[in-house]
């Protein structure tokens, strides 16, 4: 989104290095993410795009041997700083994973999980409302409104992934990270999710890791191309796909490697 013709930057990463033990996985990544736009991260397997995504909500903390260096600035605040409250950070930055991972609880409880943790609802009515709006935003409400108290694991794969998206948006995050959200889904469910992503960018900044270049071209406004732990090129999706500057980008996009 542009204000007075100036791009609004939501996330600003400076000199990010990531190490798994002694092995360096990311080299000096400098990438700005525009607000209320969809940014796609593409690149061959093992290039570090998921690792970078997981830096943005500090999910790499879960991995013992992983170390992150450099600055990632969100809302004028470095999330790698010691004073950063990871709980608050993850409230602001939601995540959707490759494989749908609904909790083994009811559909309702899956959605109410985040708001409960963050104390966002004062009453049952408020919670009902949060659940309803989240499910509506995730385009799942019509399909599940009569069975909110049945297990979320009983839904189909595409429905489960939309449930996970609804779960992520239930805490009204500013940013949603999506790690190959459609790789376990069939084409119809994929189309539904892509449509949903387009809808969600009105209220959220979205960063999506994808293996499908067609998907990147369809859903994103900006694209970053990763290769062997380095950010080779980034810019508007149009430019990356039609007129890439780097030879490697061109080769990858035209399917010559990867």
């Amino acid at each position, binding site marked *: 989104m542009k204000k007075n013709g100036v791009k609004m930057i939501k996330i600003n990463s400076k000199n990010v290095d990531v190490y798994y033990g002694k092995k360096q996985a990311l080299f000096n990544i400098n990438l700005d993410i525009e607000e209320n736009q969809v940014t796609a991260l593409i690149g061959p397997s093992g290039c570090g795009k998921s690792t970078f995504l997981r830096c943005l*909500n500090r999910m790499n903390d879960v991995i*013992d041997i992983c170390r992150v260096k450099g600055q990632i600035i969100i809302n004028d605040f470095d999330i790698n700083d010691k004073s950063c409250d990871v*709980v608050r950070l*993850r409230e602001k930055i939601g995540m959707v994973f490759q494989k749908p991972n609904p*909790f083994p609880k009811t559909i309702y409880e899956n959605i109410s999980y985040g708001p409960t*943790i963050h104390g966002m609802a004062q009453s049952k009515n408020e919670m009902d409302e949060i659940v309803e709006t989240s499910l509506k935003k995730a385009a799942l409400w019509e399909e599940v409104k009569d069975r909110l108290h049945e297990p979320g*694991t009983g839904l189909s794969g595409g429905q489960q992934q939309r449930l996970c998206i609804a779960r992520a948006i239930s805490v009204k995050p500013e940013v949603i990270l999506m790690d190959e959200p459609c790789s376990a889904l069939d084409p119809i469910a994929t189309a539904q999710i892509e449509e949903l992503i387009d809808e969600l960018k009105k209220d959220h900044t979205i960063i999506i890791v994808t293996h499908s270049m067609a998907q990147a071209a369809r859903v994103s406004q900006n694209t970053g191309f990763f290769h062997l732990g380095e950010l080779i090129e980034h810019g508007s999706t149009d430019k990356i796909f039609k007129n890439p500057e780097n030879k490697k980008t061109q080769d990858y996009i035209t399917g010559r490697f990867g």
Partner: protein
Amino acid sequence: MNLILFIFIVLLGFTSYYFGRRKAYTIQSTNKRLTALPQFYGYYLAIWCAIPAFIIFSLWAIFEPTIVKLLILSDYSNQGYLDDELNLIYEKTKALSRRQFTGEITPFIEASAEKYLSLRSIAQSSKAVIVLSIIIASVAYAYKKISSNSRTREPVEKFLKAVLFTASLAAILTTVGIVFSLIFQTIDFFKVIPLFDFVFGTHWYPAKAFVRDSSEALDPTMYSDTFGAVPIFAGTFFIAFIAMCVAIPIGLMSGIYLAEYASVKVRQYAKPLIEILAGIPTVVYGFFAALTVGPFLKEIGNSMGLDVSAESALAAGGVMGIMIIPFISSLSDDVITSVPQSLRDGSYAMGATKSETIKKVIFPAALPGIVGSILLGVSRAIGETMIVVMASGLAANLTLNPLESTSTITAQIVVILIGDQAFGDPKTQAAFALGMSLFLVTLCLNIVALRVVKKYREKYE
């Protein structure tokens, strides 16, 4: 002789394996395609060599004594001997043939003993001859099959399946046998002692039912107020309850720590250390309870002005709880570890802390498995004997005071079956009735535990 024959069959089996395999290579060298890998030819021949021989061998071992006995005793038929007397004659004959007979030797028995010896030697040599000819016949048959390159893989696979089936059948039949041995004695017991008195009676003094003279008639009234099982059932559940009060919190918390908090290195050392607890024999726990924990509790109690028995339910239950910790800790650790990482990631990504994730996502997901591990722990607590015998006394007090001594079903079975006992006596049969009720209780617990665990498995598959 039997041993030599046995070893001989085994050796022949190995030899035929090599011959079978070599035959396969010969067939292969004539540029014919084998129907299976060469070792299947070997197995096929070895099976045909050993199995028919072993079948004959075991049938012989089963029927030989019966037939010899019939032949010996046929000399004594029509002489008006009773069955018992005939059996005695046969035993005397056998003893004499082994030169272990010390009584008066009559010419009849001496003749029988000689006949017995000659019959046995005939039997031995004819057994060897028959077994060897069976081996030759079946190996010849199998070798012919191999030579014509007919299928060997399917019969060998079928044979393996049959072996595995027999093994599981043996396990099941043993269980059935144990249950039946319990059932018949239990039924006899309840013929004398009414079921109602057993289940609802509150006095358990098996010592009162001293061993009865077998000539005396059985008088059920003399057992009233003797076999009331309420105190020992209460004691069993009470001690198991104390044990679980110790084992569940400690076991569960250490399981959660190991699965979720401990670093790889800590886990690597801590888990085996906890599992060592499971390997300590219960007698050793019994020492610990009787010689350390019991007196220690008594001392503390006395210093506080409480009257504590040196043998108390608390000492036995507490130590039993320590014994059960590794079961619950190890099983719940496994269950928690098997909760998919994606659920943890999902929860962390929502901003949940570690303890919130454990409480709200992992624990509910792992709950069925944890309940299963607890139920298995309970059935161990109920079945535990040695600690109770050593640390909680043998008097069946009906009490809910953990500082007094009390007794359990298993401990009472020990009390009843140690020392003088007579079969067919209600006192002895009482042990079987107790065993039967214990079996039923633990069976129910295990069924529930298995159901719960099964339900858990379905969830992720």
